[in-house]
């Protein structure tokens, strides 16, 4: 995936997030955040600094939209930091040239890895938004509901976009 397609996908995802998901009247607690899909499908061959900078920019844009200070940026950075470790834990050691990234995994293992990352991202995000550990029960409820819907939407996106499921 080249840089141009990545930018196009980012704009698409942010538009989707804002036109349809924000203020979704399904749940009074929390909100699905699908924009992290971009972070999940970042090609593993991309060097680390670029990954960090893309994450930072994406998070900042979300923060400006939501007026949430730096909560999204921090949560996204937290996600990108633990992403390689989580991948290694589930997939074992792979040679760098054989590594095709999350976008080409089968649905089962994709969901496993993504669930861990999404829950981690959401709990960081809601803790940041809460400015601390007060009312922890509400933070956990928000994390639970939001994570379930985000994971559902991400699995649909994966089934739609992954080359693995494309018609041959």
């Amino acid at each position, binding site marked *: 995936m080249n840089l141009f397609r990545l930018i196009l996908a980012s704009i698409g995802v942010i*538009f989707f997030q*804002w*036109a349809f998901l*924000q*203020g979704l*009247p399904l*749940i*009074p*607690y*929390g*909100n699905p955040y699908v924009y992290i899909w971009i972070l999940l499908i970042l090609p593993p061959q991309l060097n*680390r*600094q670029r990954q*960090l*900078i893309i994450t*930072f920019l994406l*998070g*900042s844009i979300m*923060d*400006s*939209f*939501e*007026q*949430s*200070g*730096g*909560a999204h*940026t*921090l949560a996204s*950075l937290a996600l990108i*930091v633990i992403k390689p470790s989580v991948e290694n834990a589930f997939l074992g050691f792979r040679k760098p040239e054989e590594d095709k990234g999350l976008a080409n995994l089968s649905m089962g293992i994709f969901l496993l890895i993504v669930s861990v990352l999404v829950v981690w991202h959401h709990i960081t995000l*809601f803790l*940041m*938004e*809460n*400015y601390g550990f007060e*009312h922890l029960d*509400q*933070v956990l409820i*928000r994390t639970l509901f939001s994570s379930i819907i985000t994971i559902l939407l991400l699995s649909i996106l994966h089934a739609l976009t992954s080359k693995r499921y494309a018609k041959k």
Partner: protein
Amino acid sequence: MRQLILFLSKYRNTLLLIVLVGFSLFRHTLKNPIAEHRINSVGFNVIATIQNALNSLDQYFGLEEVNQELARENAALRASLPSAKAPFFQRDSNYEYVPARVIEYSYTKRNNYMLLDVGTKDGIETGMGVITHGGWIGTIVETSESYASVIPLLHLKGNIGGRIQGKGLGELIWDGSDHRVAYLHDIQREHEPTQGDSVYSFTRALVAPPVLSGFVVSATQNPEDLTWIAKVNLNQDFANLNWVYVCKLDEANSLEELNLPLP
């Protein structure tokens, strides 16, 4: 020098991460004391313009709701005619109500936000109160030329005064869970709030006139100082906001003059 360059190139990823985390933490902490966050208002105008464009899509599909809201508001205004007994909308000619469209809002977060499509060109300033026919909404905290940002009641810092007629003053606080319910703290122990009591917002005259904001559902007594904590059903549906009014006191200047220190 060579050592330094080697060090920098070896740990460049970690250093970059530290810088980025530092910057976003800085930005995040600036957002916390709401008054001063200049760095967060960079690009506020651009963001608001984009939000405005996205909102027009929603606006089209929401015409039916707007219609219903207008009908409800009409009813509320009728109720405030001199012949009616319980005025919803205060008949107060000292205020000018600037109608504003809500471009973007949230109600699912701990600290919610709201954007309006009026700004300094409409005479909007920070500190003005925002109400609807359904009650208190919030305070303006940031303005650009044609947009304004509001801290709604559904925010950690959105608390306002609340008053039950004849039972004294309390503080209306949202606890961060349900957007339909708020709590009125510190009602004196002699005055037990009963079910159905109407709760009016109470702010300085510069901010907004008192408006009917909700009804008491139940009350519990605080074991520490025996004051009452009333559970209040909010009159305004925060999940469904289209049009609001920004309150502008006509004689704000002469009121401000009184506050000037003596020469």
